[in-house]
């Protein structure tokens, strides 16, 4: 019963990742693609949680944190790139 529910949930997550990939491919502008990429990252986080429940192991729980941080940082970097054209700024405030 519980295994079946988890399998259905994992299938739904796979379908939503596929739809996001379609948006990444056809997205007319760069921000569209980045919103979809961010969503793929967040969806991967939750599917890894489900996989670790299915295998009843706690070994994958670090991956959740790392993936969440990576998705956040990459979205920030992309939005800075869209806004200014550079990712790292060397100009000082003074």
């Amino acid at each position: 019963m519980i295994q079946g529910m988890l399998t259905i949930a994992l299938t739904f997550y796979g379908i939503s990742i596929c739809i996001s990939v379609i948006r990444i491919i056809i997205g007319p502008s760069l921000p569209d693609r980045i919103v979809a990429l961010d969503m793929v990252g967040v969806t991967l986080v939750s599917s890894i949680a489900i996989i670790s429940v299915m295998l009843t192991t706690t070994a994958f729980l670090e991956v959740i944190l790392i993936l969440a941080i990576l998705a956040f940082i990459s979205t920030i970097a992309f939005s800075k790139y869209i806004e200014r054209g550079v990712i790292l700024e060397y100009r000082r405030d003074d």
Partner: protein
Amino acid sequence: MNIDATIEFIAALFMLAGSIMALISAIGIIRLPDVFTRSHAGTKSSTLAVLLTLLGAFIYFASNQGFYSVRLLLGIAFVFLTAPVAGHLITRAAYRANVKMADTTVEDELKEVTDKVKEEAEKERSETGEVIIEDEKKADKEHSE
């Protein structure tokens, strides 16, 4: 059906609800007309999906193995804090990059304000007659943010 099985069933129900929420947000991301509405679907509802799923995993591990995972709670807190911030930043960048809005957009209040500020800056510059080189202009813009 003893109490442990019930709690595990509730945890699996949480995870199923989260996956349905992710599916709804994926439908939103493919159907909605422009990047602003799409970011609405892609950040808000998928944040809720991740919260429900991680909460379900936390409950499952707590009941099945007696393991209260701090990492899952940290993941919940982190996603809850960062996903709206990332959505806001990417929407702001899209607005600054003049991404076209949908044809059904009724109102753009920010455009009026930015037009006014730009106009005032133009007037001031033409009054004082000063010549601003490109680099300083950029620095001014960054300060005013």
